């Protein structure tokens, strides 16, 4: 399993700390940094070049959707996961439009994120928004 370099983005310090505690237990995960709004996230992605960004949807200054769009404009952009308190088709639709590769509900955050990270680490970087996630041609 390859090591995944992860950037955590959330405006609540408590949330970042909790996520950090869970992710630290995994030896194939390396949390390379954190940011508490979208603007910082863009700069951090440019500087740290993470493999995966776990991005909060709602944040002050710049939220997760706008940040995702702008991060996806960089060279070899990371895999971006939007985490939202609201999980409905409209929020998912907006995340997909912004260019996010995956969407998780904050209500089942750790469970969904771990499942996703395991898959990414195992297969390269399949988009879970693919109709049929394919490692077939890779």
């Amino acid at each position, binding site marked *: 399993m390859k090591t995944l370099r992860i950037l955590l983005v959330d*405006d*609540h310090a408590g949330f970042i700390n909790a996520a950090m505690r869970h992710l630290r237990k995994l030896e194939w995960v390396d949390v390379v940094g954190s940011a508490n709004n*979208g*603007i910082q996230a*863009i*700069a951090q992605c*440019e500087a740290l070049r993470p493999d995966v960004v776990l991005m*909060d*949807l*709602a*944040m*002050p200054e*710049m*939220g*997760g*959707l*706008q940040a995702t*769009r*702008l991060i*996806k*404009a*960089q*060279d*070899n952009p990371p895999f971006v996961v939007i985490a939202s*308190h*609201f999980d*409905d*088709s*409209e*929020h*998912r*639709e*907006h995340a*997909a*439009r912004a260019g996010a590769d995956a969407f998780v509900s*904050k209500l089942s955050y750790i469970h969904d994120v771990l499942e996703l990270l395991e898959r990414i680490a195992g297969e*390269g*970087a399949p*988009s879970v*928004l*693919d*109709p049929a996630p*394919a490692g*077939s*041609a*890779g």
Partner: protein
Amino acid sequence: MSESRILLLDQDAQRAERVATLLEFMDFSPRIADAADIDLKKARASDWVAVVVGDTEGDAGFDGFAQWLSSQSLHPPLMVLPGHEGADWRQQLHPESVWTLDYPIRRTQLQEALRRASLKRIDEDERRTTAEGDNGPTGRSPAVRKLTQMLDQVAPFDTTVLILGESGTGKEVAARAIHQRSKRAGKPFVAINCGAIPADLLESELFGHEKGAFTGALTQRKGRFEMAEGGTLLLDEIGDMPMAMQVKLLRVLQERTFERVGGTQTMQCDVRVIAATHRNLETHIAEGKFREDLFYRLNVFPIEMPALRERADDLPDLIAAIARQLTDSGRGSVKLAPDAVQALRHYAWPGNVRELSNLLERLSVLHPSGQVTADDLPARYRAGLPDTPVAAMPESPVAAAAAAAAPDPATLSPNTTLPPEGIDLRGHMAEIEVELIRAALQQADGVVAHAAPLLGLRRTTLVEKLRKYGFDRDES
């Protein structure tokens, strides 16, 4: 975009604390304040996703605050706790942006109000980001002039329109322009991306559902057809609509009636439908993924959106328009040096206008003041510059390789001259595409994720093309 801050105006301190705790738990950032303490000269209505209004008696600043809000073109909704029925300040604000909350707080009501506020905010932000707004496409190139002419031609009639074109070419901008120039302009414009919604939810999204229609249908809900009543509905990515839904859509188009999921009552609808897709629907029909009868229903007036690389002359106009929009919406400013614009003219723009818009917005964040030169551009945008010496090429090997492999169609295919008997353009383009994909896969040792950037494609797009052209593991 997707703001988390909520302003909480309540002189009842105990209640304010209680509501704040609840909001924090729901992933928002509440700020308890007196309206009098808000500096209206510095504040922006977009600083909050919602304003919760409790007891404002004795808050000297509240009336002024309400007045200020009403003067803002897009302001967050006010979620009003009991006690303001018939209050004077309510007259200043549009009733659609004043929502009521019960107290004691009901979790489901608050949750739903916040969900709506979140979507309202995202929608408004997305509108602001659409570089071209409702004014239609920007530019003076022949391709844009022809496009504008077609939009004007079809707008006044209720004709179904099919908008085709690559991702990011502004299909929604075109659809909005049609709506704005039609007699439906005063009615809602509703868009839905059929590809982004799970197949099993699409029907209820389009047609709504009755309470209890399926697990999770706790309340009755309107679908997008109902929301668009009297106006225009854009069915984006129609090529991704499952076959089962295509039948239902066909019926609505033919009979102008539908039923909510779980409902028995037949509803009439008066909605102009515009469909859009980046896919080739004829190929989809041949593959059995799209209904031919639906295609003919939709294909009454097809409009092909030009790719940005086919109208590079519009770049300066587009850059100016997007920069103006960024400044106007307070999202920063960006100024490009001539060498940067020159570099961008040589780029192939696989993501079209949307990609340009994202790039400029990114530059305005990373270079908030000062001029952006070609060197400040991400590597792939510099790769096409013909006079850049290879030694000065960017550190990224992928981008450098992309430059080396930059396709000059003339060298890749001997048939770029039109034979007297003509050619099958689609088939011909497909062959060129297959050749380039094969070359990229070879260069990337068959790793799709590495081949995609060589072609300026997203990995998912390449995977899709591989599937479309029937590449299998051995070949790649």
